[in-house]
């Protein structure tokens, strides 16, 4: 894989053939004010025993049909680092025995710096993790506080250094930009610090106001809201600094040094297949999208009675799958192959307007969004053109 640039088209097409597994770990010490994910906020509700949930995950893995062997496994959340390495290991063992692992499997999880200990790091290494993404979010303590994060800048440093010491092959961090408390200077310092600390992968997410969150209530009550133009500036700032340090953007929010692409990430956006476990997890295999129960009780109850914990299912026709591949592929720097649907979009008024505006590029058998911050505008039009096929 190291022979590919992160934004290589050949790599993206290869990723479409990968098989991944996603495991959702819902536990968080406290819900962040901007978060609307399906989580268990343990500052409010500590009734769910981690072991019980891991048992259910293992049972759920056991219910699955043949799939694999796996190219990538990702533990997301929530906060996967709320589980101890032994618990993570139990899930990995279940996945291994059920699906098998490729020899070069990417085994990754998200770690919150607040959970870091050296012992935890050794445990991850023993459990077979090859990649860790650190939920840093910012190197500005003021912004960290505004984001409602419980960890400090020092804890981020300790986590990244510790992971290196444990021999984790690929270390990444997540950053959030565009909070109203952030300034252009503080963002530049955060990005520079991320470069200095020496990571292989950076995910940058623009702060998004989701309905029902504390953030959205605060804004409704008069707190300043994130500004689209400011976020566009910050995104550009990041691009400039990170590129000069050898990072290549391969998806709107994801940037990697050579050979450090997150396989699970790339596979998802390349329309690869993945099996998923845990509450609110989404599964995509054989042209079917399943989603699991969001409520923990319903999930546990279903698993306990031997049922798959499904909340919904969507069967996709060939055309619908092609549409989804187009929609997802437009997020990738490598773009998406010029399938018949993509060609029709390219030839439509809306598609040509996008090209004319310098947002969309067509060439070498592919279609690429070259202004990533405008991707949804392109996808919206692409969807409406492809709607006729479905």
């Amino acid at each position, binding site marked *: 894989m190291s022979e590919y640039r992160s934004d290589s088209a050949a790599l993206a097409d290869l990723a479409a053939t990968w098989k991944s597994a996603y495991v959702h770990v819902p536990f968080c010490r406290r819900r962040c004010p901007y978060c609307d994910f399906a989580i268990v906020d343990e500052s409010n509700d500590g009734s769910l025993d981690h072991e019980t949930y891991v048992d259910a995950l293992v049972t759920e893995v056991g219910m699955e049909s043949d799939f694999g062997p796996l190219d990538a496994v990702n533990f997301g959340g929530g906060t996967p680092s709320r589980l101890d390495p032994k618990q993570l290991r139990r899930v990995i063992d279940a996945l291994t025995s059920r699906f098998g692992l490729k020899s070069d499997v990417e085994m990754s999880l998200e770690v919150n710096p607040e959970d870091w200990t050296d012992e935890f790091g050794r445990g991850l290494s023993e459990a077979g993790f090859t990649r860790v993404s650190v939920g840093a979010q910012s190197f500005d303590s003021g912004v960290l506080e505004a984001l409602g994060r419980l960890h400090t800048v020092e804890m981020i440093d300790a986590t990244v250094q510790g992971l290196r010491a444990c021999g984790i092959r690929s270390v990444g961090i997540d950053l959030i930009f565009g909070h109203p408390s952030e300034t252009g200077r503080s963002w530049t310092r955060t990005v520079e610090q991320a470069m200095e600390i020496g990571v292989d992968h950076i995910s940058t997410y623009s702060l998004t106001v989701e309905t029902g969150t504390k953030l959205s209530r605060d804004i409704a009550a008069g707190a300043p809201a994130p500004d689209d133009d400011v976020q566009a500036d910050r995104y550009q700032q990041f691009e400039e600094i990170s590129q000069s340090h050898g990072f290549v953007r391969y998806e709107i929010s994801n940037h990697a040094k050579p050979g450090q692409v997150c396989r699970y990430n790339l596979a998802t956006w390349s329309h690869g297949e993945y099996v998923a476990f845990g509450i609110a997890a989404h599964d995509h295999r054989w042209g079917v999208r399943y989603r699991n129960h969001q409520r923990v009780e319903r999930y546990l109850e279903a698993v306990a009675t031997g049922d798959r914990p499904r909340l919904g299912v969507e069967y996709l026709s060939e055309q619908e799958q092609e549409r989804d591949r187009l929609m997802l592929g437009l997020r990738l720097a490598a773009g998406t192959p010029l399938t018949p649907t993509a060609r029709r979009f390219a030839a439509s008024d809306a598609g040509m307007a996008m090209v004319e505006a310098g947002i969309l590029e067509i060439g070498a058998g592919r279609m690429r969004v070259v202004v990533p911050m405008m991707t949804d505008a392109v996808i919206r039009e692409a969807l*409406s053109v492809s709607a006729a096929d479905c």
Partner: protein
Amino acid sequence: MHMDQSRIRNFSIIAHIDHGKSTLADRLLERTGTIPERDMREQLLDEMDLERERGITIKANAVRIDYEARNGERYEFNIIDTPGHVDFSYEVSRSLEACEGALLLVDASQGVEAQTLANAHLAIESGLEVIPVVNKIDLQAADPDRVAGELVNILGGTEDDVVHVSAKSGAGIDELFETIVERLPEPEGFPDSPLRALVFDSYYDTYRGVVALVRVVDGALTEGDRIRLMASGQDLDASEVGIRRPAIERTGRLGSGEVGYLITGVKEIDLIRVGDTVTQAGDPATRPLAGYAEPKPMVFSGLFPTDGDDFERLREALDKLRLNDSSLLYQPETSRALGFGFRVGFLGLLHMEIVRERLEREYDLDLVATAPSVEYRANLVEGSQRIVQSPQDLPDPGSVASIEEPYVKAMIITPAEYIGTVMELVQSKRGEMGEMNYLSTERVELHYLMPLAEIVFDFFDMLKSRTRGYASLDYEPAEYRPSDLVRVDILLNAQSVDAFSTIVHKERAYTYGRGMVHKLRELIPRQLFDVPIQAAIGSRIIARETVKAKRKDVTAKCYGGDITRKRKLLERQKEGKKRMKMVGSVEVPQEAFVAALKIAED
């Protein structure tokens, strides 16, 4: 059997919106047993949904009731219900022509309004006997003596002539009946002369065709007669003749002084126009009744379907509305911005609003309407005159010697405390002050000559808001006058958008252009590229703003593999954008086209 003419009383009820006209009519029908109690419902004479909802009368109606007076005689009352609004003043004048008397009904708490006063003057000019009636005397806020005083000021006479009623409770209704018998004159027709009957309204009935409401002045109208319409010159058969109670009651004959309906089997409403005179084809009258006039639209607006595929449906809907409304005039119009539609002429703003609402509600059409315009006359350098109903029709400024615009005589009634405010407002709208009369110590009647275009803009709303709703307005056409007018064009992305062009007075052009450009900048969402918005007179740019290109349109956040939800969200957003009109390469929301209507407020 023909009623003795001396025992017929034909009258209409003149009242402002909400002053209780429909309730009074309901009460009269109920008291005389015309409608059995079980069939009674509110606003019985207003048959259209829109009329009932808004509490207004759009179409005239006529109903016969029988009344046994205290003197023991039976009387035949014909109540002719008329639209009260200025837009329908020609219809009102024809309805009044069919009467000998009118009840001037005024709310005891509100007092006389401009519209009521205008119609009262119309009634007096038509030689009608007017009975002043103060309604809602049982209301807490009622001040019947003050209102009676206002009525005496307008009509003369003494306060003893004013009848006090509560249409709601029925108090005073019996006295009102007796007053009608005593004070209103009997019809003065010649039963033995050749037939002359006035068509004071007509409507289309799916089963019967055109039904004309008529008042027989001379002679008699009998079923089976071969009749002639004197203005249109059309000869038809009187296939059915009768009265309305308000349900149709076939009587076969209407004698002089009587009011009823006439059916000829004709389907085209243009053949039986309001104001025409019906006579016998075999024994025609020598002269028609006076006052026939062609309906004349005063306000014009472009109506365009949001969905271009609905053009044919819009045409069909207009054709159907016209069956009932011969004053509705329209012709196809093409706009570069809005596609295919119609330029529609209306009697006034209310008429325009009603037609639009009926098209949208009754025919399920989604419409974009351009800013209303009046009919200008452009005198060309080469000597001829061009009629301009749409700003786009205004010839190139170089070829125009002068432009004339319609002026109206406007009457405003306002509480005295707002005189200054009203004067200031009217002055800013190029109004020239005429007479001023005090109706009472608190209320004043102001007369102005002002351009209709200013009224059409949003004068009425401004008048209402600046007088906290207390002032009322009425107007009638006066004359054409030369004015210093220019067309302000709006350019989006350097392309002139015809639907936004407006003719305004030169002195206001700059303010208007700046306001419009500013408003559009707020209304037009950011696009993929910078969109300059300019206002121009000819090639001269008078205002400019820019909608900056959109820079971020993405959820740069991982969405946990939930592709379905993300896709649905984007599809919903796209659906929302479908309500936009593509003007060149710029997406313009529907509200932007309405903005021109509201611009003067800012």
